[in-house]
C-alpha cells in the first residue's frame, strides 16, 4: 500500500486539533493525543470518495473550497509545520470560572483572547528561525505551542523531533546545586549516569560557573542561570532547540560563544527556534524571521527582508504621538478578543467534512477548544468494567458486613454461654471447695482411724469432682481466663480426674465426655 508507506515516512509528533482529524469512533478506547496524529487509511468500503480525499495526499483531485494538506513536500526536511494555528485563552476571572467552563458545554464564554490568530509557517531542517515582534504579540505563546507546553485551539501543528526549550529560568530546581541540576535535567532527558559523567565536564566548562557549580541555584544571578540552562541544553542534543530570550541575558563573551555553538548546531542540521528583542542578534544568527503582530503572522521570510520591514515599522510607530499609539494598541487588542477563526481562514473550513454533522455543528458553535478533551473517550467497555467493579464492590462489602455481623452475633451468643457456664463452674467449684474442706476436716478428724476406712471417703467425692472435667473442656474451646481457679485446685484434682475417667460406668461422667468431644458444648449447660 503506497498510502501506508507514505504514512510511515512521516513520523510527525502531531498535536492536531480536532478539525484536521478523522473523527474517532465513540467506542474507541482512550489514546494519547500525542501519538494519534497519523491518519490511518480507512477501509475503503466504509467511506465515500469525498471523505477519503481529505486525508489523501495531493495526487487526488482536491474538492473545491476544501483544505488539502500539502503532504507532497520532502517530509524529512520539514521540522515544524504550523497550519492555521490559533490559540485562544479564556479570560476568566477566577479559577472556579475555569472549572465551570470546563464542564459547561452549553454556554459559550465571550471573554476570549486570541493569542495566536491563524498562524501558518514551515520550518525546514537546519534552519534558524527568529521570532520578532512587540511585547504581547504572541511570540512566547508560539514557542510554548511548538514545545508542546500549551495545547493549540485550532489548526494543526506538527513537530518532528525532540524539542528542548530554554528560557531564563529554564526549569532549574533552585534549592539544588548547579551540578545536581545538571544531573537532574540530563536524567530527565533520558541520559544514563555514565553518559552524564562523560558530558558534565564540558557542561561546567561551557557554563563558566567554576566554583559556583556546587552552590545552590537560588544564589545564582539570572545571567548565571541562563548560562547554565543553555550549557545543559546544548548537551542534551535536541533536534529542535527553542530559546526564549535566554541569549540576551549572558554577557557578550558568552553570547559569542553561544553563537558559535549555534552555528555548529546549524551545520549539524539542527533546527533552532528563538525569540529575541535584539535586532543585531537576530541579524547575526537567523536565517528566517517570523514577524508576529498581535497574534498574527505579518511576514515570514528571509532575515534581511523581514527584519528591515519590521525595523521600519517600529521606527514609524515610535514616531507617532503617544495617544495614537495607545489607540492603535487598544484597537489591536480588541481585534484579538473578537477574532473568529471561521471568518479569517477562508481556505480552511472550520467545519471540516471529516466531521459528522453533529460534530460540525458543535465545532462551529463552541469552537474546538474542548475537542482535545473529547479525543480520549471513556469507552463503553470501560464504563462496563468500572460499573461492574463498583457493583462487585457494593455487593462484596454488603456481604462481608453481613457475614461479619452474623459471626459477631454468633460469637456473642457463644460468649454469653461461656460466661454463663463460667458462673456455673464457679458456683460448682465453690460447692466442691466447700465439700473438699468438709472432707479434709473430716480427714483431719479421722487421722486416728485405720487406712481401711479410706475408700469410704472416695465414693462421695466422685459426683463432687465431675464439674472440674466440664471446666477443663470449656478451657479447650475458649482460651479465656478460666485457668487461674483451675490451677488453684490443681493439687487435689489430677488423681481425682483419673479416677473419674476410670469410672466410666457413671452415667454422669459419660455425658461429660460426649460434651467435650462435640463442638457445641453449650449442651452441657442444659442440665
Amino acid at each position, binding site marked *: 500500500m503506497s498510502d501506508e508507506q507514505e504514512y510511515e515516512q512521516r513520523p510527525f509528533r502531531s498535536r492536531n486539533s480536532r478539525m484536521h482529524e478523522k473523527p474517532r469512533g465513540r467506542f474507541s478506547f482512550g489514546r494519547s493525543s500525542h501519538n494519534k496524529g497519523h491518519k490511518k487509511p480507512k477501509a475503503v468500503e466504509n467511506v465515500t470518495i469525498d471523505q477519503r480525499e481529505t486525508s489523501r495526499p495531493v495526487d487526488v483531485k482536491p474538492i473545491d473550497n476544501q483544505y488539502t494538506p500539502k503532504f507532497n513536500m520532502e517530509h524529512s526536511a520539514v521540522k515544524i509545520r504550523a497550519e492555521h494555528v490559533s490559540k485562544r485563552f479564556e479570560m476568566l476571572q477566577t479559577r472556579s470560572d475555569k472549572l465551570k467552563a470546563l464542564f459547561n458545554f452549553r454556554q459559550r464564554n465571550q471573554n476570549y483572547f486570541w493569542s495566536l490568530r491563524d498562524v501558518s509557517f514551515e520550518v525546514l531542517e537546519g534552519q534558524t528561525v527568529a521570532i520578532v515582534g512587540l511585547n504581547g504579540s504572541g511570540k512566547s505563546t508560539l514557542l510554548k505551542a511548538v514545545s508542546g507546553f500549551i495545547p493549540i485551539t485550532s489548526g494543526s501543528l506538527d513537530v518532528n523531533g525532540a524539542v528542548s*526549550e530554554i528560557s531564563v529560568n529554564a*526549569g532549574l*530546581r533552585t534549592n*539544588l546545586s548547579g551540578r545536581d541540576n545538571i544531573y537532574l535535567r540530563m*536524567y530527565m532527558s533520558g541520559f544514563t*549516569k555514565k553518559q552524564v559523567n562523560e558530558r558534565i565536564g564540558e557542561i561546567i566548562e561551557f557554563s563558566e560557573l567554576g566554583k559556583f557549580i556546587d552552590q545552590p541555584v537560588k544564589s545564582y544571578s539570572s545571567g548565571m542561570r541562563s548560562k547554565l540552562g543553555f550549557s545543559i541544553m546544548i548537551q542534551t542534543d535536541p533536534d529542535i532547540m527553542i530559546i526564549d530570550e535566554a541569549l540576551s541575558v549572558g554577557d557578550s563573551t558568552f553570547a559569542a560563544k553561544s553563537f558559535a555553538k549555534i552555528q555548529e548546531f546549524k551545520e549539524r542540521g539542527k533546527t533552532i527556534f528563538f525569540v529575541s528583542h535584539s535586532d543585531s542578534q537576530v541579524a547575526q544568527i537567523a536565517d528566517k524571521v517570523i514577524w508576529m503582530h498581535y497574534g498574527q503572522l505579518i511576514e515570514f521570510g528571509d532575515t534581511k527582508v523581514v527584519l528591515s520591514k519590521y525595523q521600519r515599522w517600529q521606527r514609524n510607530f515610535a514616531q507617532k504621538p503617544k495617544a495614537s499609539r495607545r489607540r492603535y494598541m487598544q484597537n489591536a487588542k480588541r481585534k484579538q478578543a473578537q477574532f473568529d477563526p471561521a471568518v479569517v481562514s477562508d481556505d480552511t473550513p472550520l467545519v471540516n467534512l471529516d466531521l459528522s454533522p453533529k460534530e460540525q455543528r458543535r465545532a462551529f458553535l463552541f469552537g474546538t477548544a474542548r475537542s482535545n478533551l473529547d479525543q480520549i473517550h471513556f469507552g463503553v467497555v470501560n464504563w462496563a468494567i468500572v460499573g461492574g467493579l463498583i457493583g462487585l464492590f457494593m455487593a*462484596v*462489602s454488603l456481604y*462481608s458486613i453481613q457475614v*461479619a455481623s452474623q459471626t459477631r452475633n454468633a460469637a456473642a451468643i457463644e460468649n454469653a454461654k461461656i460466661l454463663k457456664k463460667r458462673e456455673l463452674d464457679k458456683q460448682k467449684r465453690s460447692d466442691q471447695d466447700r465439700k473438699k474442706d468438709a472432707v479434709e476436716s473430716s480427714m483431719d478428724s479421722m487421722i486416728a482411724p485405720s487406712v481401711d476406712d479410706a475408700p469410704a471417703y472416695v465414693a462421695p467425692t466422685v459426683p463432687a469432682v465431675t464439674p472440674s472435667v466440664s471446666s477443663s473442656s470449656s478451657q479447650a474451646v475458649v482460651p479465656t481466663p478460666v485457668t487461674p481457679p483451675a490451677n488453684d485446685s490443681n493439687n487435689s484434682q489430677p488423681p481425682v480426674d483419673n479416677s473419674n475417667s476410670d469410672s466410666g460406668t457413671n452415667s454422669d461422667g459419660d455425658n461429660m465426655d460426649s460434651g467435650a468431644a462435640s463442638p457445641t458444648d453449650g449442651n452441657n449447660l442444659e442440665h
Partner: protein
Amino acid sequence: MNSLIQVLIEQIKNHQIAQRIVKYDRRSSSQDYYLGQVWEIINPILQVSVYFLMIFMGLRSYSDRAGGSWGFLSWMLVGMGVYRFISQTINVGSKAVKRQLGIAAKMNFPLSIAPQISLLSNLLPLYVLVLLGVGIRMYAHLSVHINLIALAYYFAAAVLFAYGMALLLSTLVIIVPDLSPLIGTALNMGMWLSGVIFPVESMSPVLMDILQLNPTYYLVYGFRNTLFGNEAAFNINWDNMTILFWTITLIILMVGSHLHLKFKSQFSEYV
C-alpha cells in the same frame, strides 16, 4: 482499560529514568536540613515513639496484645511504615505532576512517571520501619514469620494502590487545587481509621466491620499478619477484603490513568 495499560507500560519503560531522578528529587526536598535525608527515617520513628508513649505508657489499654510492649511497638512500627509509605506517596505524588510540569514541558519527559518518582523516594522509610519492627520482635524473642511470597504480594498491592491514588489525585489537584489540603487531612484521618496506632478490633464492632472495607486497612494488616501472624479478625474476612481491595484499586487505576491522559495536554492551562 487501554489508558491503564498505556500508563503502566510507560511506567515500566521509564522506570530507569525515574530511579535516577529519585536521588535528586529527595535531595531537593531535604537540602535545607543539616541531617538531610536522614529525616525521612527519623521522622516516622519519632512519630511512632510519640504514639507509643502516648498509648502504651499513657492509656495502657493494649498491653494484653501478644508480645507485651515489644510486641506492640513492632506491631505499630510495621503498620506505621506501611501507612506512611502509602500516605506519603499519595500526598507528595498528588502534587508531583504539578511540580514537574514546568520542567517536564521543556523536554521529553513523560509526566505519568512523576507519581512513580515520589513512590520510589518513599520506599526507604518503608523498608527501614518494617525491618526495625521485625528486628525488635526478634530481639524480644517473639515469633516472626517471613513469608516472602505473601510479603511480595502485599508490597505489590501497596505499590499499585498508592500509585493509582497518586495518579488520580495528581490530575484532580491540577483541575481543582482546593483538593490538596483536603488530601492531607483525609490521609491523617486514614491513619487512625486503618488501625495503624491502635487495633481496629478495639473499636465498636460495627465500626470495625466498616473499617475493614478500607483498602489501607487491608494493606496495613496484611503486612502485620504476614510478619507476625496473629491477626484473627483479619484472617477471618480475608477473602472478602481481597476482592474489595482489588476492585477499589482497579477502579482507581482505570479512572486515574484515563483522566491523566485526557487532561495531559491541558495541564498547563490550569496551573
